[in-house]
């Protein structure tokens, strides 16, 4: 039988309109930041993509003042129907420039182009479109008549879905009448700064959106700033706790979307091929850089051998490499730091006695890559079963009864997401009811929609993003 080899199908990097340098966006203008400039690299090649100006204390002050002024003079008093039209414009502009943004996102983040193209960009645009419609309907959101915005929101987002997380933060904030100062992640600032350009193209009044690139120190300045009314953070539980501690005792409002260690439970009556696809999507989507990744696979003991065979075969067919190649399933790990963390936890898994299987797929020599890895014989006490790896590494545990599955699934301080695979409706509903997690995917995984609230229980954070409930985090209710 003839074997057809893959031919590379790379998307052109020229589409990204990459510029040699990018600057902070304050009060409607790109300005020279007075912080130490950073160089953002392509994690797939380790080459420098661009130099990016960062914010200092005085830039943060200027941005917050601009946001305050815009809130008081323009955006706050503006009728919701008018705010809505700006958000609709932004949604359309994202759609129009989505190819450019998708390529830029894959260059800066390392994620496969098929994901940035088919997932990050369409959902980001959808978030603006969805929230645009809320701006003049807040009276109907269930918080009483005429709910008021909070004021100036400081928003700190991670590097795993740079533009999408920006959309999750900015769209609801603006729809409810707040203005924002947003800090993109240190390693992925580029699409946020193109978004700033989109704000200009949309004619958004100056100061409504301010984008300040920088590292954790800029985030800390936002968290500590006295004239910010609300902090929204997505990132690690470790940093989330520090932020909660900083904000404690002040009048600042806070929402946190933190880490996870989701259980993906496969029952013996599950449609196995479909389940394996879902398991693969659950852990290898976005290189596993997903807070809600299904990183703990719980398989009913009677089918564990069959599932493992199918799983290893399926994973062995995945292609790792150039994020811009449309064939690529797994792109680059976002940074050397993250790669080190993944390696360290994988070593711990081996040292603690779990059985490691790693796909023998070819891995590029340059860039930060980690071949998809599945651990079996994992016990609950192991670090790879307890700690968030945030990489393409799956830990497989077994269970015998539904109640054991629920107990193991809930045996974590986290509580962001979970998965259930079964053909039995009553079991799905009963298990979904008992799982302590903010999102439960049954016979699917990693589905996101602006109309569906997302967020965690316990140490996965508090507050929701998306849906009617998501508005609450930006309203004085």
């Amino acid at each position, binding site marked *: 039988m003839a074997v057809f080899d893959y031919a590379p199908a790379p998307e052109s990097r020229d589409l990204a309109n990459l510029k040699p340098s990018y600057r902070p966006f304050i009060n409607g203008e790109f300005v020279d930041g007075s912080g130490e400039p950073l160089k953002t690299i392509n994690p797939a090649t380790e080459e420098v993509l661009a130099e990016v100006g960062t914010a200092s204390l005085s830039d943060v002050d200027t941005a917050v003042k601009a946001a305050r002024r815009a809130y008081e003079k323009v955006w706050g008093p503006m009728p919701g129907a008018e705010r809505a039209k700006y958000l609709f414009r932004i949604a359309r502009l994202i759609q129009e420039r989505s190819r450019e943004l998708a390529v830029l996102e894959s260059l800066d983040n390392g994620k496969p182009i098929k994901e940035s193209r088919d997932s990050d960009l369409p959902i980001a645009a959808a978030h603006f479109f969805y929230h645009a419609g809320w701006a003049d309907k807040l009276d109907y959101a269930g918080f009483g008549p005429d709910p008021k915005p909070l004021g100036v929101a400081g928003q700190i987002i991670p590097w795993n879905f740079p533009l999408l997380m920006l959309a999750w933060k900015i769209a609801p904030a603006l729809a409810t009448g707040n203005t924002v100062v947003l800090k993109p992640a240190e390693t992925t600032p580029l699409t946020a700064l193109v978004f700033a350009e989109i704000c200009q193209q949309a004619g958004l009044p100056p100061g409504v959106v301010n984008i300040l690139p920088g590292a954790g120190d800029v985030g800390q300045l936002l968290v500590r700033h006295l004239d910010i009314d609300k902090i929204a953070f997505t990132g690690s539980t470790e940093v989330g706790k520090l932020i909660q501690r900083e904000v404690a005792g002040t*009048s600042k409002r806070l929402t946190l979307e933190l880490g996870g260690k989701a259980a993906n439970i496969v029952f013996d009556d599950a449609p196995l091929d479909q389940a394996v696809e879902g398991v693969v999507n659950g852990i290898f989507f976005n290189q596993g850089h997903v807070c809600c990744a299904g990183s703990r696979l719980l398989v009913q003991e009677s089918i564990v051998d069959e599932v493992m065979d199918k799983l290893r075969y399926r994973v062995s067919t995945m292609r790792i490499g150039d994020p811009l190649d449309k064939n690529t399933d797994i792109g680059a790990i976002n940074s050397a730091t993250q790669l080190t963390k993944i390696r360290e936890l994988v070593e711990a898994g081996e040292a603690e006695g779990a059985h490691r299987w790693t796909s023998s797929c070819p891995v590029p020599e340059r860039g930060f890559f980690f071949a998809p890895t599945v651990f079996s014989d994992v016990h609950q006490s192991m670090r790879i079963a307890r700690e968030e790896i945030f990489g393409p590494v799956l830990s497989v545990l077994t269970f015998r009864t539904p109640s054991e599955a629920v107990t193991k699934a809930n045996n974590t*301080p986290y509580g962001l997401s979970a998965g259930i695979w079964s053909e039995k409706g009553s079991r799905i509903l009963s298990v979904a009811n008992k799982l302590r997690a903010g999102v439960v995917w049954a*016979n699917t995984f990693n589905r996101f929609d602006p109309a*569906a609230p997302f967020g965690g229980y316990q140490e996965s954070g*508090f507050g929701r993003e998306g*849906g009617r409930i998501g508005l609450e985090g930006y309203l004085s209710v």
Partner: protein
Amino acid sequence: MSERVTVAKTYKLYIGGAFPRSESGRVYPVQDNKGKFVANAAHASRKDVRDAVSAARKAFPGWSGATAYNRGQVLYRVAEMLEGRRDQFVAEVTAAEGGRRGASIVDAAIDRWVWYAGWTDKIASVLGAANPVAGPYFSFTVPEPTGVVGVLAPQQSSLLGLVSVLAPVLATGCTAVVVSSEERPLPAITLSEVLATSDLPAGVANILTGRAAELGPWLASHGDVNALDPIGAEDRGALAREAAGTVKRVLAVPAEEPDWTARPDISRLRRYLEAKTVWHPMGD
């Protein structure tokens, strides 16, 4: 003929459905609003807090898993028992708080309890949703109870304030560990006797008497407490910092005790509910 000597009551803690003394053996004197000695109240310790949290955690699956209708009936039963002890509450509230409003305060507290009892089987339809997602999926969002809630009860309003902060916790399906008003603890203890005789499962509500300043930090830092209402505490900033260690939900509360007679809204219910979104594909 000499006047009859009344039978004085020993006031104790309410933990896991039982009425133990503080394991520390400590008590403190409680005075009425004129400074007259009324009783010794148990002075709860850190160990009592831990026992109470453990009882509340144990009770959580049963209470949160009960049908909303059942929870509503149990809470309504509490109101019935409150009504039956109305005179006792009026006397205790008047002794603790002074003034002539004892009867109206107790009436308001009973009515408040009934109001929250009626919410148990309605809040999910008010806060939940079927999500119109862009794909072949059925996606719905339901509110679920946060877990174990630590409540530092109001210091001034010994019954109406207490009821206003405790009833919403129980109505959502959460379980509670309450530290009562330090100087006015007796209505709280009487309330615990009402709870114990109202079909409320053991451990769903636990009431400690003692000092919020001493017990608050243990509640705030406890790894098995999911949310904290610091309204009866003084140093709320410090408690909130402690609570950050386990990402607790900490209620934003006004600096001064609010007017508890004001009509409540559902904001306290919202604070103790987590939204859970469930997805399932649709297809043939």
